[in-house]
């Protein structure tokens, strides 16, 4: 674990997330192994790694869907429900008769809850969110008629309304065209500008190098964690790939036992 776990240097930024010897997994099989380190408030962090590296598992751990097998995640006083999470290939029932407008409006759930009304300011906010993702004119369309890119734009509009301090995106740009990716990246930059913490699981290294200042290279354990150029250096990528190929085995982990 060479550059993993940036050392706190007493700067003014407080950590939004801190992993302490974190192990996450399913039925005792770890998917994320002994992860240490912290994510500062307002960070824009890419999480890269081969398939099965534990990237999605880490996301599910952060939102509290998965309890750690060992270690802990400190959320810096953040309520788990103050975290917006866009799962990988979000499992939305596209045949359900609901309009783009209503789908986006659900982003207000934390404010409106089960019964709260949606007032004029909320309507303005919804309209702004829909405009921000470039879906004006699609408000009354049923979600079943949207293309893959339009659906992802809808989900991003909902994320906008959630107004969360911590935003987790699991492969948000998979199977999208360049225009859509660039539009949605604008939103990610906007969140970054608003000092929100954004974590995104990504596979496109060029995109990560261009837009994400920090990267966590994960292959069960952290291979590298730091500035993107260093983290994605060729020797680290090679190491991550080797780790990815060498998986399997049922022997109990000595450190974890």
């Amino acid at each position, binding site marked *: 674990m060479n550059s993993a776990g940036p050392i706190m240097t007493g700067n003014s930024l407080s950590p939004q997330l801190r992993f302490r010897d974190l192990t996450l997994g399913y039925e005792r099989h770890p998917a994320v192994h002994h992860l240490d380190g912290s994510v500062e408030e307002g960070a824009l962090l890419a999480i890269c790694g081969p398939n099965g590296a534990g990237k999605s598992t880490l996301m599910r751990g952060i*939102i509290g*869907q998965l309890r750690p097998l060992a270690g802990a995640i400190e959320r810096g006083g953040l309520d788990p*429900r103050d*975290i*917006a*999470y866009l*799962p990988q290939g*979000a*499992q*939305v*029932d596209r045949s*359900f*008769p*609901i*309009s783009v407008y*209503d*789908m986006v409006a*659900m982003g207000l*759930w*934390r404010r409106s*809850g*089960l*019964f709260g009304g949606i007032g004029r300011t909320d309507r303005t906010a919804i309209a702004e969110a829909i405009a921000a993702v470039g879906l004006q004119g699609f408000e009354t369309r*049923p*979600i*079943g008629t949207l293309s893959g890119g339009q659906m992802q734009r809808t989900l991003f509009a*909902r994320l906008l309304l*959630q107004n969360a301090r911590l935003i987790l995106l699991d492969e948000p740009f998979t199977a999208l065209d360049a225009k859509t990716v660039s539009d949605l990246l604008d939103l990610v930059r906007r969140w970054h500008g608003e000092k929100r913490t954004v974590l995104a699981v990504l596979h496109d290294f060029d995109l990560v190098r261009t837009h994400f200042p920090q990267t966590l290279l994960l292959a069960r354990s952290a291979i590298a964690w730091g500035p993107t150029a260093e983290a994605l250096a060729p020797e680290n990528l090679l190491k991550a790939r080797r780790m990815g190929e060498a998986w399997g085995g049922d022997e109990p982990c000595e450190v974890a036992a």
Partner: protein
Amino acid sequence: MNFTDLFIAPFAEFEFMRRALVGIFALALGAGPVGAFLMLRRMSLTGDAMAHAILPGAAIGFLVSGLDLFAMTFGGLAAGLFVAVGAGVVARATELKEDASLAAFYLISLALGVMILSVKGSNVDLLHVLFGTVLGLDDPTLYLVAGIATFTLVTLAVIWRPLVLECVDPAFLSSVSRAGAPSHIAFLALVVLNLVGGFHALGTLLAVGLMMLPAATARFWVRDLTPLVCLATAIAFVSGFAGLLISYHVGAPSGPAIILVAGGAYVVSVLFGPAGGVIARRFPQRHFEA
């Protein structure tokens, strides 16, 4: 025969017709929305299975105290909830999928119910329970059906958002709220409650008809949720009204007549419905510019 003779006179002249109409309207108010959600949650067959599952409970109630409203309602509720929970437990504890375990439960229930009824009662009693007596609704039964409709609408208003969100995007709901599981259970309870209400009027075999047929019919006409629920309820209203009139004028049994009208509306909608009907798909309209 003029308009009044055809449509008004039967209800103006006979109290039992007015009672039947009120009963069916109350039933439709609850069954319409519940049926729409059953369909959207892909639980149409669950509704069917639950309707059959009510039978042995009602039959045991009948065995104990004859054609007594309270006993049969309570028995039906207990049996419905037992099967709902039992099928869920079997599906989770074994490798059997939930639809298969529901099918097993309801086949056993149906056979058991018919068996119990024929041991104690006559064929008339059996027909009463299977096909209901919409033309013989007394005051307590009307209150019960209306009470169930009221309770259903209030509960639906409370659990509306989580119910919708759990259909569309369950992962998102669980990330913002813990209301998913409780609202699902409340909804299942509403299904059983409405089927029990429906069984007094339409019997266990047809109670689910007034729930599922209007919902499936409405799906061929509208693509948005709120209109879908309203239209399903309206179709249930009209089916009840038309079915009662048909049974009055031609002397047909009223329960099946009501369901057959709803079934007719369904067949017409399958063919001519603009939202995904056969003809709309075969001959698409000219498309828009963009």
